[in-house]
């Protein structure tokens, strides 16, 4: 058996007066697509911040998170910075806040590309970086790369901005991609395209995916295994197909029933 890329054991996140996540354990194998389902306040986004070592200083982590064999909890910032480039990258919900509004998109993608080339001791001159940026834009299926490179975030659509954010995340060549509600701010037709893009990219590049969403149907399209969280605790975990069609826990059952109700309405059975 291959050893896991990410292993979370007994993770507890707390502020001085409140426990936010308690006793969480799960693991993600290399190349695995893992879905984290939860409603607001479930602790799903905090968990992803803990994995990348980006927790606010007021939140104290306990337990263990190992990513690519290295412990995250208690690691010095210097190691975390390197790991965020090497091992893990995140795509957030709102690409407009993830991108710098005053910088052309090409330069924003070039940043992580240049850092990665330097880190790996490769040629990081203007030509090499520009070539890499263009191939990333092609990778995320963005049309007219020449125009996009010169465009500012507000000049392109929400779906295109999210593609740029994905390109920036992939620029690091991470082994784990975290996508935190990456389609929630998008129109449904754009959402479908981004979901297809993320799924095919992680497969193509052989990277693992931690996909976080409140939307059961979207997670069902992306993930092989899922975990349901509520109030900071794990409620149920297993293969996606099993949890979404034969849930064991009563809370998961109520979520699945609610999601199905809207599906059935769409089938004309209100």
């Amino acid at each position: 058996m291959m050893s896991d890329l990410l292993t979370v054991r007994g993770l507890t996140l707390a502020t001085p007066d409140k426990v936010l996540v308690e006793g969480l354990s799960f693991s993600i194998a290399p190349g695995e697509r893992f879905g984290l389902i939860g409603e607001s306040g479930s602790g799903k986004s905090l968990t992803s911040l803990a994995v990348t070592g980006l927790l606010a200083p007021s939140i104290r982590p306990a337990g263990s998170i190992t990513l690519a064999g290295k412990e995250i909890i208690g690691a010095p910032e210097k190691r975390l910075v390197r790991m965020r480039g090497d091992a893990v990258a995140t795509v957030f919900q709102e690409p407009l806040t993830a991108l710098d509004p005053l910088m052309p998109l090409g330069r924003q993608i070039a940043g992580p590309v240049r850092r990665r080339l330097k880190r790996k001791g490769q040629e990081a001159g203007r030509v090499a970086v520009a070539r890499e940026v263009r191939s990333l834009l092609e990778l995320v299926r963005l049309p007219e790369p020449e125009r996009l490179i010169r465009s500012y975030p507000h000049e392109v659509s929400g779906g295109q901005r999210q593609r740029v954010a994905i390109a920036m995340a992939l620029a690091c060549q991470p082994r784990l991609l975290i996508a935190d509600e990456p389609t929630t701010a998008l129109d449904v037709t754009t959402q479908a395209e981004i979901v297809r893009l993320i799924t095919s990219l992680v497969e193509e590049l052989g990277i693992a995916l931690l996909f976080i969403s409140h939307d059961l149907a979207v997670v069902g399209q992306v993930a092989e295994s899922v975990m349901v969280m509520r109030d900071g605790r794990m409620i149920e975990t297993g293969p996606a197909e099993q949890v979404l069609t034969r849930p064991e826990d009563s809370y998961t059952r109520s979520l699945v029933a609610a999601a199905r109700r809207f599906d059935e309405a769409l089938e004309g059975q209100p």
Partner: protein
Amino acid sequence: MTLMSVENVGFAYGSGRRVLEDVSFAVPRGANVGLVGESGSGKSTLLRLMLGLDSPQQGQILFDGAPLEARDRTFIQGYRKRVQAVFQDPYSSLNPAHRIGRIVSEPLRSLKVPGDHRKMAEEAITSVGLSADTLDRFPHQFSGGQRQRIAIARAIVARPELVLADEAVSALDLSTRVRVVDLFQEISERMTMIFVSHDMGVVAALCDQMVVLDRGRIVEAGATAEILRNPQHAYTQSLLASIPRMPEGPVTP
């Protein structure tokens, strides 16, 4: 009988591009009409016009046979008594400094509705499934779903004929959303409702009729069941095809 009729409405902000172009549909009294569209469809602008916050540059909107005059204060005063709204975000639509009782009874005061306002507010708040003592508390003491119930109580307290709901369940968690949809369904039996949303599933669950907007134009309109079964326009088809569905499997309610 038609309660609201939108006739050949066109609208542009300033000298910009038209955001609504020749939009026409009718809302029969007692019906539940869903206005569906993605961002840029013009649905929010159409809602502004239906609320009387702006006037169309082409065409007109008739309410109960009379043209909606956004600039006519007396008309709008009367219109507000008959039409109320519920908005998307229950965190910004309730004044945090006011008690729920004051928030819910606000339409009664501003519309100078005669009668015992406290009693009417109690009736409204209990009809949305909250207890009467809710009225003595403040918005921050309630969850998102409860706040949206409070917003609904405020919308129905003056017994309007028409409720306009703007993405009124979109900000809610799934389990809460189902319960608030149930509440809207219950309320819609007593009044006419126009439900503006990007969420086809919610509109399918709530509305017997639906109007699909794309880039300022109506691409399809009619009975919800018919449109879902047999969408005619390519845009409606792609919209329906894009909605993620739950994996097939045994149903375990």
